[in-house]
């Protein structure tokens, strides 16, 4: 007798499961394919953007950046936070939050590691700047601008130190452990005498430059130069983050976020890239902390609480997890709303809580949902597929190069 001719030997559970899987997979395209990308104002806008030629995109970007730089001078009436709050300072605050959100987005959005203690790195950056420039500190002094790269390095080291033992954990467990990070730094700042607890550090340094009237250009009360400095750094970080996204690093992160085991099986050193995500995110957080410390001019242990840390996460989620433009938008929004609407500033956590719930229900991908583009030259390849069967792909690409 032959086993070949008989009925399929194992028609039972597995086959049924496979059939069910299959049905699910085939049902999906019709429902989720269109829903995810084509609905909504932002979706259509995003599609239009992608269809634009590169030069046109650059023109638009330059225009947007120019407007962003001019904002403190233009002080547009409806957008302005005055008379309640100084508009340039509000803009600086927005830019710092945007930078924080872009850094945190690397950790949460790309690699899918829910970090609730991101404030720790912000605090590390702030203290690095303060302890190396404030006259209250016993340490050696360096020029303020030097503290920006130093803050990145110190925060990255702390990120690696905290990441190596904890990144073996996954999901909820990791979130709970990271929640402790922020508290650890805050409590250390209270306990270690050199960090001066609540007394803190005054007269944190500032970039050089004197105005004609003898007031420093980067005075604590003068938001515009601080805003321009932060905006410039933000743009550079965005460009670098974009480079990472469209490389094997970005692909590895997204693969880890999507299915960590499968990523490992496909040859992705998942642990290494998780630590990298943590370290790079920490570096950006540290730099934002240093900028913040410089502008405010005062650092103590009261500013780095868990609530602010959650606010950072809210900024990322609000804007669109995984999308750097969304993170900028979310970060700026979270900083802007309490400063603009001072009457409701007291209720900001209530408002953000409600906003987050509504977003999770109606726009689970955030205000600006956009998919990461993970190939440096992907658009060319997709265009080739769209424009009919490639007759001679090799020749075509050589021309493109």
């Amino acid at each position, binding site marked *: 007798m032959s*086993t070949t001719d008989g009925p399929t030997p*194992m028609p039972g559970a*597995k086959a049924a499961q496979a059939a069910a899987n299959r049905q699910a997979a085939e049902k999906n395209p019709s429902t989720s394919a269109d829903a995810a990308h084509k609905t909504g104002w932002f979706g259509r806008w995003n599609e239009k953007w992608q269809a634009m030629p590169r030069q046109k995109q650059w023109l638009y970007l330059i225009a947007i950046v120019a407007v962003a730089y001019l904002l403190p001078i233009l002080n547009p009436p409806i957008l302005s936070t005055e008379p309640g709050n100084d508009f340039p300072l509000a803009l600086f605050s927005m830019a710092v939050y945007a930078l924080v959100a872009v850094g945190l987005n690397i950790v949460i959005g790309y690699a899918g590691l829910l970090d609730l203690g991101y404030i720790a790195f912000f605090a590390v950056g702030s203290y690095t700047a303060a302890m190396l420039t404030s006259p209250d500190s016993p340490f050696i002094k360096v020029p303020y601008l030097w503290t920006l790269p130093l803050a990145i390095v110190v925060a990255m080291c702390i990120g690696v130190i905290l990441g190596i033992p904890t990144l073996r954990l996954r999901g909820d467990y990791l979130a709970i452990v990271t929640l402790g990070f922020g508290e650890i730094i805050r409590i250390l700042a209270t306990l270690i005498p050199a960090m001066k607890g609540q007394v803190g550090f005054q007269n944190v340094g500032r970039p050089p430059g004197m105005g004609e009237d003898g007031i420093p250009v980067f005075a604590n009360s003068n938001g515009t130069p601080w805003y321009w400095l932060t905006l410039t750094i933000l743009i550079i970080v965005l460009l670098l983050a974009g480079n*990472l996204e469209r490389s094997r690093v970005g692909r590895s992160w*997204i*693969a880890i976020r*999507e299915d960590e085991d499968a990523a490992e*099986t496909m*040859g992705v050193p998942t642990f290494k890239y998780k630590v990298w995500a943590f370290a790079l995110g920490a570096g950006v957080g540290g730099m934002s902390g240093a900028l913040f410390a410089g502008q405010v001019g005062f650092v103590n242990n009261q500013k780095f609480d868990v609530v602010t840390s959650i606010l950072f996460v809210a900024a990322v989620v609000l804007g669109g997890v995984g999308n750097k433009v969304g993170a900028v938008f979310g970060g700026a929004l979270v900083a802007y709303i309490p400063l603009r609407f001072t009457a409701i500033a007291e209720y900001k956590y209530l408002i953000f809580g409600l906003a987050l719930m509504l977003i999770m229900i109606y726009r689970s991908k955030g205000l600006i949902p956009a998919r990461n583009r993970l190939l440096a030259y*992907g658009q060319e390849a997709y265009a080739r597929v769209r424009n009919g069967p490639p007759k001679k792909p090799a020749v075509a690409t050589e021309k493109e190069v």
Partner: protein
Amino acid sequence: MGAHSESVPVSENAGGESPIELIEPMEVTEAVADAAAPEREIDVAVGDDLVEVKNLTVKFGGLVALDNVSFTIKRGEILGLIGPNGAGKTTCFNAMTGVYKPTSGQVLLEGGLLNGMKQHKITRAGLARTFQNIRLFGEMTALENVAVGLDARHKTSVVGALLRLPRHKAEERSAIERGMALLEFVGIAEHAGSLARNLSYGSQRRLEIARALATDPKLLCLDEPAAGFNPAEKEDLMALIRTIRNDGYTVLLIEHDMKLVMGVTDRIVVLEFGKKIADDVPSVIREDPKVVSAYLGEPEDDFA
């Protein structure tokens, strides 16, 4: 070029009644092997032992999932691994690819020990696999999924990617070319830009194979690649698997569908209750009384 059909170890496959002609290299074959993995050495020593599994034992607490199993996989063959549900096929797979740590025994790839290596290192050593329940990166396009596999051979560092150094650019270029070639090879090139989760079930299965091939494996392990396929799709899949082998890859195939296994494999290892009960060419396996009883039950078994 990749075809080396003359040296496939077993070719007395399926005496007569099999509907499949042996080894018909398709036209696309050669081009694909070159495009997907140009630096591969495929014409070396076909027929010698590529993978040796020696006395492999896996225990989960008191349960012995795999009991002293030994077999070899020869370079250039398609080896079938079959057995009833729960026989230990997938456990064997997982122990080989580093998902489980074997309780005892060894897995050797070209004489090098794989035990205890990290999974991603095993993949880079040359063992790639697909999953029984599809596990693609849903939010990535088909081409990006394949690119993740290709990245296993890439050397760009984080700094290199950050600053877009020349090597990064060159690797990105080659990823596009090789990725598209692989998608074309498995027949889903027109979906290169679609998100993996939006692909049809059959395309998802094919994409998994393309992604595994992208890691440039010496041994490709397919875990029930035809699950949920209709007969026509299975036919296509068999042709694809044969093409892959003709291209110079060695294939380990776990499969339930007897027709598929008998039609496509050169040799079959049969597991039952974690033990190896047979290891031979398909025509012998199908007549083996132990195998038949393992699948259909023994006649004297008392079911009352």
